């Protein structure tokens, strides 16, 4: 690992100031992405601001029914929190389906939101990659793109899928990302936080210079709804999703009143599927209806050379999850 300047921040203000004091600075939380990528020389910060001592480890139920999660709450603690287990099972399940016990113990809420893609061409340090070296091209297009590449939201410049499970659940739940920077704090809708690759795959999120995530606030849970996360992958544990679905659904007298569907493993960002949701609302559950919703979710899908299977697989991730939820 290259040398870098290290500082430890005691509060958010100090963290932001330290970050702004130098060019090419990274915030260090759990380190499970950053240190991994620094070891393979893909991320090369000149300075690292350690925010682990900042007091952002609380989970608070807000009076309006929302739940505010500190950026440094570990994935383990979030998944096991009584409120999350009771009111957001889809989030608890998504978190526990990701990584491993040890990694979840280190990984943080803010860090998970910020995690980088698993594309081999991004990680290898030498292949053309517009995320790593803007303008160099994308080796994944036409390369090996079976497992960690998307069919939704891709561009000719980048096709890497977003790797997070947690974010898929948050996309379904609805959330707000609170950030603090030199100019103060602001809220960003979760749906607007991650950016599509487009012509600028190196721009992955809506953070501005020296801004730091301080909280993620979940929308209030839908009363009377059921939710679940279904993750399909090459092995049963410790593997990134080939396709996953986070679904929240509420029925009344046998009719679907509300539905929220988000997809993982298939999109270049945590992928909300409003077209699929629209198919369901006002209808009675049936296999044909679920197939129609799944089909709508992938209407704009574009298969790459090795991942065409993700389109039917992703559809099945929706159908199976829905079928289990309404059974």
């Amino acid at each position: 690992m290259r040398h870098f300047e290290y500082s430890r921040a005691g509060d958010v203000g100090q963290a932001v100031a330290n970050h702004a004091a130098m060019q090419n600075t990274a915030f260090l939380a759990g380190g499970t992405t950053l240190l991994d990528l620094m070891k393979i020389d893909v991320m090369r910060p000149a300075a690292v601001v350690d925010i682990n001592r900042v007091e952002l480890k609380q989970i608070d139920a807000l009076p309006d029914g929302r739940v505010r999660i500190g950026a440094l709450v570990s994935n383990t603690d979030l998944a096991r929190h009584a409120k999350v287990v009771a009111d957001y099972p889809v989030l608890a399940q998504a978190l526990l389906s990701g990584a491993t016990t040890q990694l979840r113990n280190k990984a943080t809420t803010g860090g998970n939101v910020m995690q980088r893609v698993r594309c081999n061409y991004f990680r290898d340090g030498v292949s053309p990659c517009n995320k790593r070296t803007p303008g160099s091209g994308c080796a994944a297009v036409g390369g090996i793109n079976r497992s960690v590449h998307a069919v939704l939201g891709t561009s000719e410049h980048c096709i890497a899928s977003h790797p997070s499970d947690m974010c898929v659940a948050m996309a379904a739940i609805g959330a707000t990302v609170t950030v603090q920077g030199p100019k103060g704090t602001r809220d960003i809708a979760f749906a607007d936080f991650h950016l599509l690759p487009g012509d600028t795959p190196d721009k992955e999120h809506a953070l501005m210079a020296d801004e730091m995530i301080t909280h993620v606030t979940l929308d209030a849970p839908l009363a009377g709804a059921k939710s679940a996360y279904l993750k399909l992958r090459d092995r049963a544990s410790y593997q990134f999703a080939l396709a996953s679905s986070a679904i929240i659904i509420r029925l009344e007298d046998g009719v679907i009143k509300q539905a929220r569907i988000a997809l993982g493993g298939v999109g270049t960002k945590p992928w909300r599927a409003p077209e699929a949701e629209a198919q369901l609302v006002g209808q009675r559950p049936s296999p044909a209806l679920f197939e129609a919703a799944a089909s709508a979710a992938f209407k704009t899908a574009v298969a790459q050379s090795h991942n065409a299977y993700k389109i039917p697989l992703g559809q099945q991730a929706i159908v199976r999850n829905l079928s289990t939820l309404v059974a």
Partner: protein
Amino acid sequence: MADHDNPETPHACPSCPPPEPAAAPSRRSFLMSMGVSGLAVTGGGLIPRGQVQAAVPVAAESTAAPVAATPLAPGEQTVTLVVNGAKRSINVPPNAVLLDVVREKLGLTGTKKGCDHGQCGACTLHVNGTAVNSCLSLAVMHDGDEITTIEGLAQDGTLHPVQEAFWAHDAYQCGYCTSGQMMSAVAILKDARIGRDDASVREAMSGNICRCGAYKNILAAVQSARTNMPKVS
């Protein structure tokens, strides 16, 4: 080589000093005595330059010996860790990884380096009682933290119930992943939030890869140790 490792073997080399009576069977101490300079050269990549030579004399000492802080080299800072109950102050550069510091500067080589990227679990140790991958931590992040390594599990010469169970169930073949497996097992058995059934244990242990495939016996060992775990207050 077996002669060097077996204290029961008659001392066969007339020109060699007699073995230390209390010496642990140690391939490592043999290597250390044979090639301090060689190790310093070949091992130079792990903890950044200048650190390895300082590390070797420390590593050769008893693991229980306190490590005195030495003058700071440029770019270094002093970090105090409570390692297996003993306070250890060490000087490290910011990019020194906790795993490498534990092994090279503290001489606690029971914690293993496998993939070095959080994918295999061989480096699992406890930070303030929580199991983490030490390969994905910087030592400077842990100033003041309590670190427990595999060397800290046994108490007063008595193996931890998890160590006993791994032994009894033959829960290893080559042994390289074993210390990480046991550190994960101890943390899992203490964590009431993790289910007691086999499926939950398998899932919770899935961050520890065993290339020999001893998973069946590892699972049996973990479940068997459950009944003998020290009561958590």
